[in-house]
């Protein structure tokens, strides 16, 4: 029990150091404030303890003192607020050209699908030194994707995408937890994040069974007949999707929104919600027809139609994936722990 007793979590992402720095600053500030209050209370309690014949000296108060201990804490709090806001803002804004991983959470497992097509359950392999963007949704209740070593957490909601990202800096095997209570096996909804050296990662990646996710999406796009309306010219009954992703779209009601993952998702499930200007609301809903995984593939396909650089790195270089090869043996660093929960889906 005592030979495995850490007091500080692993620091394995580009964000972790920033969070730790603010945390340490907060410990120092609050430690000083605690010391100040405790010292004053203990000193006064001892120095001014009741003695026979000695009366308390009445003091009404002091405006300068009140202002002092209102304004100084307020100033300190504003520093903490700004610092916290900067760390948060950076940790919430995924860099362009990130590697993308689609996450589907369900009671009580994590299903992860790389844009390149690899699928994993309760285990995610990522390379060190690359930005990884997670596009997440849930099939049932709210979950939360939490990697303590990366100081990263994002709730995963049914019915929409939420996005998070990280940049791993240290090879190793790290905990993945579900942090939002989700029912009976909530504490079993855990997994491993395997951070690998880029070369090993490439080797691991080379065992792609089914080609990139966008290719799967293209197949579904054809099978469902989407292609009959969303043509590659201007003659279709639906908007031409080429180059649309990531661009502003003008809607029928006059609003302009950015075509992001959530917009594509909503347009598939609830096509009448935000109709593009100049088109009729004739598209049927695909709610209940496409699964979450198929939705992810469709979204990845629509994204791949955007010019390179507009979305993620996966479309920039799909040729590096060679389907049909056997997966290379996976070796991990940094931790001797096994990963019994992980399964790679072939």
């Amino acid at each position, binding site marked *: 029990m005592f030979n495995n007793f850490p007091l500080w979590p692993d620091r394995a992402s580009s964000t972790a150091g*920033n*969070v730790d720095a603010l945390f340490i600053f907060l410990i120092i500030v609050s430690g000083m404030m605690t010391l100040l*209050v405790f010292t004053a209370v203990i000193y006064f309690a001892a120095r001014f303890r009741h003695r026979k014949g000695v*009366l308390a000296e009445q003091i009404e108060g002091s405006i300068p003192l009140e202002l002092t201990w209102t304004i100084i804490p307020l100033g300190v709090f504003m520093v903490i607020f700004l610092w916290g*806001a900067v*760390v948060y803002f950076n940790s919430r804004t995924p860099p362009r050209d990130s590697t993308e991983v689609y996450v589907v959470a369900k009671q009580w497992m994590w299903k992860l699908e790389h844009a390149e097509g690899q699928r994993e359950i309760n285990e995610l392999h990522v390379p060190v030194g690359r930005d990884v963007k997670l596009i997440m949704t849930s099939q049932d209740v709210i979950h939360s994707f939490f990697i303590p070593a990366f100081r990263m957490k994002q709730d995963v909601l049914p019915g929409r995408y939420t996005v998070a990202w990280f940049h791993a800096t240290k090879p190793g095997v790290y905990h993945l937890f579900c*942090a*939002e209570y989700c*029912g009976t096996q909530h*504490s079993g909804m855990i997994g491993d994040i395997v951070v690998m050296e880029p070369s090993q990662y490439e080797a691991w990646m080379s065992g792609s069974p089914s080609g990139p996710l966008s290719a799967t999406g293209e197949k579904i796009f054809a099978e469902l007949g989407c292609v009959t309306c969303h043509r590659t010219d201007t003659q279709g009954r639906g908007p031409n999707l080429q180059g649309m992703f990531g661009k502003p779209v003008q809607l029928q009601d006059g609003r302009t929104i950015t075509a992001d993952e959530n917009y594509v998702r909503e347009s598939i499930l609830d096509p009448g919600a935000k109709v593009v200007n100049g088109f009729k609301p004739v598209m049927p809903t695909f709610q209940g027809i496409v699964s979450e995984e198929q939705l992810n593939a469709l979204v990845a396909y629509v994204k791949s139609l955007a010019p390179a650089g507009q979305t993620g790195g996966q479309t920039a270089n799909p040729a590096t994936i060679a389907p049909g090869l056997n997966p290379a043996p996976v070796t991990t660093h940094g931790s001797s722990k096994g990963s019994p929960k992980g399964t790679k889906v072939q």
Partner: protein
Amino acid sequence: MSMATATVQPVEREDYLNKHYGVGSWLLTTDHKRIALLYLISITFFFFVGGFFALLMRLELLTPAGDLVQADTYNKLFSMHGMVMVFFFLIPSIPAVLGNFLVPMMIGAKDLAFPKINLLSWYLYIIGGVMMTHCILTGGVDTGWTFYTPFSTAFSNSKVIEAGLAIFINGFSSILTGLNFVVTIHRMRAPGMTWSRLPLFIWAHYATSIIQILGTPVVAITLVLVVAERALHLGIFDPKLGGDPLLFQHLFWFYSHPAVYIMILPSMGVVTEVIACFSRKRIFGYHFVAMSSVAIAVFGFLVWAHHMFVAGISVYAALVFSLLSYSVAVPSAVKVFNWTATLYKGSIHYDAPMLYAFGFLGLFTIGGLTGLFLAALGVDVHVTDTYFVIAHFHYIMVGGALMGYLGGLHFWWPKISGRLYPEGWARLAALIVFIGFNLTFFPQFVLGYLGMPRRYYDYSHMPEFQVLNVLSTAGSTILGIGYLLPMIYFLWSMRYGKPAPDNPWNAAGLEWQTQSPPTTFNFVEEPVVTWEAYNYDEIDAGHKQEAPVVG
């Protein structure tokens, strides 16, 4: 009036306890003091129910494997621990017991403005409490006290509807108490009891009442919507039915964050009275302490989404709610500094109520400062939904609110019961609670930063968390003893305690000017207040306050 007869009985004075006997005289009473005692008995029952659940949880977490109870049982334990402790103990604790007993007496009134509504609010509490108990005994509920959707409306296989309705009904008890206090404080102050002569306990309860009246209806409606979605499949929160799960969180926290101030503000009021009395001083910066209560109540309504920084709200909303959260921290800090300054040049006594007040100061300071960590966006992402949050809010709600409640119960016990509690045991209990509390909850800050998520019953995949969990469990047993002791000696003192004088602490405040225990209508004739609050200089200089003394 019956007061006149009281003075002519030399052997045993008539008071609110012995004026009438029989079950009926209690169950149909409209006396605010008797209703306070009805509440005291009921909430003590629920406190030990909730505490029992907590001890079972701590025992389960002693070892990493889930070996004591099953997963579903554990989930029900923490859910019912939260619901029972929040809705059936902490929220009614100080307002419904000490507030009920003291608000009329402190302002020189015979009773609350609406005595029958006061009784009604206790019956609503009991109806809610019986439903909750029935719910617990027939299977319980496993949604967490937070009822997050769509889990609670579409996935949980437990008694969500019954628990939701129990809390819904209980909510009206809280609303009516708040309403009663606001009207009473506005309309029934004795002549001369101006707003700036009110004890700060009253200011704290006034601020609390505003939250109860404005906040509680929102959570009540929200729980009805949960019930409606679960029972009738109305699409409100579940995306499959066209609803929005984040809407639930906004509505829930719009009440449930201010609810923290329903728990802590009255406790701050108690601590203020105790610190003034046992340092024999006016409160330093009376107006700042009074206004900080009101500021906390107002700003407390503007910070709810700081529970949702990783829930999927926009980055900009998060920035605003983080900024506003610090606006609550300022008045809280102001209070701590004013209490500390009150000690300066005082004449400090170390009786048990004061030890609880010291304990409050220490634990509330730590609880409040760790709130700064959680309001800081970048850090919150990592520590939210971990044991860091558990430790933080227990420092506020148990370290703060419960320390204040126990301190107040000791302080006013002579007035309530007419008996003195055993001082030595009480000091020992205060010490045990303080040590047990810190041992239970401080390790959880470390656990939280390490990343241990809350609501996990099995951590066999991360055995590195065990040492801290063992410490926490050890602390919880000490804490349990600390809470059991006062119940034992309070009960003991009701029979064997020395009879209490009318004003055993030589304290300021109208409630000490009547006999112990008071008569049914508190004062023989309406008091006229000609002095400022906390006039300890006049009391200690031997001046007598010109208030009517009975007996």
